[in-house]
């Protein structure tokens, strides 16, 4: 699947991970210019579909099919096929929902917040991360949709429309806020993703050879022709969307945390939940981006565009948010002791040393301990290490939601109603199936849509390029060899800098 890169071999790529502000390292390596960026990125879509893609897609679709069967089985029988029962009325369905929504935070954070902060390194990874966001939110939306075993109830009861029951939804309920928050987030993320993709879809359209590609990309790109007047409005709209999406990133998981925090269940009723959930969401989202990007840049030969510096930056975010999550875990314990509420205190002692101790300590070791390895630059810039750690973080963040939801519910106020939750095979298959849905969408995206924001990368190539011939004290970069067959103008840029 790995195709030889157009300009340089990966081994010769220079190190661009230094942090010296006087020698700002290049963001795009290998001496790519606008022509080469177009070639490199479009090649992913234009090459003959590799066998590996078919194999991966076949596996993903099979898992997706299993998800469909399991959901049909659930609808036919009702939620009794799941392991949840009194007192644990919320279990894997809500755990999976919060898990996927959390993952869906990285994309919009990268595309909106880093855009506002002018972090130019985002341009190589934002499209990829936004796609991941949208697919993760689709997986997340699945679970509230099916969690009562009757899909038609969730939309019909939550939507405010005049109905035959002559009632309206209760707007003071955080569950309703959640519906609005997640659906708004999904809509805005989708718009943001699609709008950013329009110029790149136009590039694919203009290069398309096959008839179906011309029709597909022609329709999707809406007739974009990169006119100066269009760009003027486009850039304003993109900035506005970034500004609008930024508070959304913070709000979505805050609202999700209200589902728990506004209840009176010990272990849920804590004011730290909103910031703690947001930090955890960014943490898990970045981990998922790293997990996906490491193999993708390898397979698609995109190492000049998604460089070690990009990966290292993401690992730094994982380290920072991992520390925040660890802080939140410890402060929860402190408040449980300091607050003097015996139920609260019991809930937390039970969490760490009760029947679910194994889940708690899996969470702590995956989320708090493993990311600490990223303090070492060697580990931060090691591909196998970061891949393994990112997988650990994904596992740990799933367990975090499981621990919060299930341990709190399983030990009720009345000891006679205590219980222990165990999943059934339907629980497990639906969770695995959601990965099938995610990977199916993701593989389709990698095959048919531009996976790197070409127009934005070209903009970054240009922005920091030496124009008047005078250097700006830039770092030495590799990959000077140029392709001869390209008619390059004398001042076509050879590197771009952060």
């Amino acid at each position, binding site marked *: 699947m790995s195709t030889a890169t157009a300009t340089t071999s990966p081994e010769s790529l220079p190190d661009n991970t230094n942090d010296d502000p006087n020698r700002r390292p290049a963001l795009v390596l290998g001496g790519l210019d*606008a*022509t080469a960026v*177009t070639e490199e990125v479009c090649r992913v879509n234009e090459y003959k579909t590799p066998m590996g893609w078919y194999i991966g897609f076949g596996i993903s679709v099979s898992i997706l099919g299993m998800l469909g069967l399991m959901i049909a089985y659930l609808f036919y029988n009702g939620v009794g096929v799941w392991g949840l029962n009194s007192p644990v009325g919320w279990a894997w369905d809500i755990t999976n929902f919060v898990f996927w929504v959390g993952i869906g935070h990285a994309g919009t954070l990268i595309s909106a917040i880093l855009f506002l902060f002018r972090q130019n390194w985002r341009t190589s990874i934002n499209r990829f991360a936004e796609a991941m966001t949208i697919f993760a939110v689709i997986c997340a939306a699945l679970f509230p949709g099916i969690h009562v075993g009757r899909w038609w109830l969730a939309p019909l009861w939550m939507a405010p429309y005049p109905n035959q029951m*002559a*009632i*309206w*939804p*209760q*707007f*003071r309920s*955080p569950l*309703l*806020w959640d519906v*609005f*928050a997640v659906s*708004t987030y999904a809509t*805005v993320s989708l718009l943001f993703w699609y*709008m950013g993709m329009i*110029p790149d879809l*136009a*590039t694919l359209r*203009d*290069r398309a050879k096959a008839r179906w590609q*011309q*029709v597909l990309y*022609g*329709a999707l790109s*809406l*007739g*974009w*022709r*990169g*006119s*100066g*007047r*269009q*760009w*003027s*409005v*486009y*850039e*304003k*709209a993109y900035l*506005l*969307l970034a500004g*609008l999406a930024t*508070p*959304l990133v913070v*709000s979505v998981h805050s*609202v999700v945390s209200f589902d728990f925090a506004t209840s009176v269940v010990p272990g849920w009723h804590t004011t730290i939940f909103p910031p703690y959930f947001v930090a955890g969401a960014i943490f898990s989202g970045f981990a998922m981006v790293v997990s996906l990007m490491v193999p993708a840049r390898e397979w698609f030969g995109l190492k000049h565009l998604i460089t070690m510096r990009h990966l290292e930056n993401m690992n730094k975010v994982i380290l920072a948010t991992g520390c925040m999550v660890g802080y939140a875990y410890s402060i929860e314990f402190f408040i449980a002791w300091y607050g003097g509420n015996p139920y609260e205190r019991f809930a937390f002692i039970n969490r760490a040393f009760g029947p679910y101790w194994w889940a708690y300590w899996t969470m702590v070791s995956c989320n708090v301990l493993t990311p600490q390895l990223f303090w070492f630059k060697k580990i931060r810039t090691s591909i196998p290490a970061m891949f393994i750690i990112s997988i650990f973080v994904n596992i740990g963040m799933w367990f975090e939601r499981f621990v919060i939801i299930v341990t709190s519910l399983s030990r009720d106020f009345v000891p006679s109603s205590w219980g222990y939750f165990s999943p059934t095979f339907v629980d497990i298959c639906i969770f695995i199936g959601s990965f099938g849905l995610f990977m199916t969408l993701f593989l389709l995206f990698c095959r048919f849509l531009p996976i790197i924001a*070409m*127009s934005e990368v*070209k*903009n970054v190539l*240009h*922005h920091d390029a030496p*124009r008047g011939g005078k250097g700006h004290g830039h770092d030495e970069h590799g990959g000077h060899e140029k392709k001869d067959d390209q008619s390059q*103008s004398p*001042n*076509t840029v050879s590197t771009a800098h952060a």
Partner: protein
Amino acid sequence: MHDAVMTNHTAAKAPTLYGVVAEYDTEQKLLEASRQVRDAGYTRWDTHTPYPVHGLDEAMGNPQPVLPFVVFGAGLTGTLVALGLQTFTNAIDYQFVVSGKPLVSLPANIPIVFELTVLFSALTAFGGMLAFNGLPMLYHPLFNLPRFARATADRFFIAIEAADPKYDVKNTRKLLSATNPSALEDCYDPQDGKIPFAFYVPGVIAACFALIPPAIVYKMRNTRSPDPKIHLVLDMDFQNKYKAQSSSAFFADGKTSRPQVGGTVARGQLHDANEHLHTGKIDGKWATTFPFEVTEERMKRGQERFGIYCAACHGYSGKGDGMVARRADQLMADKKESDWVAPTNLNNESVAKQTHGELYNTATHGIRNMAGYASQISDEDRWNIILYVRALQRSNNAREKDVPPEELAKLTAQEFTITNGPGLHQRPEATPAAAPAK
């Protein structure tokens, strides 16, 4: 899409001139050329670049987009819609008090207000971008130039339309060729800007199909059908079970309701043979005595039960002025006709002269609008209530001589309380001192 256009090329008539197009290989050249075109006074022209070129707005003289103001208006609309929606649904149309919070509880409305503000703004930012840019526009004359395909990859273009008032075949080309373009050519529009005929056929077919749903709705709204409505989602509406009073093919008597099995007694229905206590009759005649010895304890119990079950309609003093009755009077005040039957004043002579047994029978089986209370109040408690009703009747029709002298002295000292009766929300404290019934 070009290929499609090119194949139609031969069929079309003489192509019209769209304008002249110059290609540049660097953005610096494009910026310089743009300034010259702008300064030459052209209005109908545009640049085409693969990415937003810094400084191009100024070089082209583009105005500041008005989009932000439109988006601001949309955001404000979203705020107001969210506030209106929540106020109307939860405070006006379907009032529902939660934890004693006010019906319009702004703090709880903040999340929805925020979400709808962002949602309206974002949809407008996207829709506004398309609208201001004239998108989607799947065909454009420039797409006819094979060279133009690189406008989205790595080349920069300036296109000046022939429709520009300043356009001149010679001078415009001269202006552009002076800006050092890597190519310069005319662009023709073989389509004449018209929609190809091939689009009309599917268009008309789609329009015809679009009429079908409203036509079906119109027919359904205006006709009657004996068929039951279609249930897309059954949702346990139809269950495989027998309902009361329905027919059954299984049982010999054709009924789903089963009679009591002979020789059995249902729970709570096992009575002793005390006819007086259970039916209010003695030897088939209404009892004029109580089935137990009258005590103060029973009187207090009767008062308590009366307050729970009877006072809501009959009022604490039995005058028929309970909360339900008073509210009903309010509602009926401005109506000429009503089927409301006011609760009886228990102190009336018509009630007072009935036997204990008759009153007990009324409490058991109900009368007029009043339902029987046998299922809610036990037999003993119904008798206790009758006992208390007797006391009410005596105290409400009492004369001075009925009151013991020492009590009378107390009462005359509190005349104010007596003449005004019990307050609106206040239960009368005066317990008739064990008014002994016969």
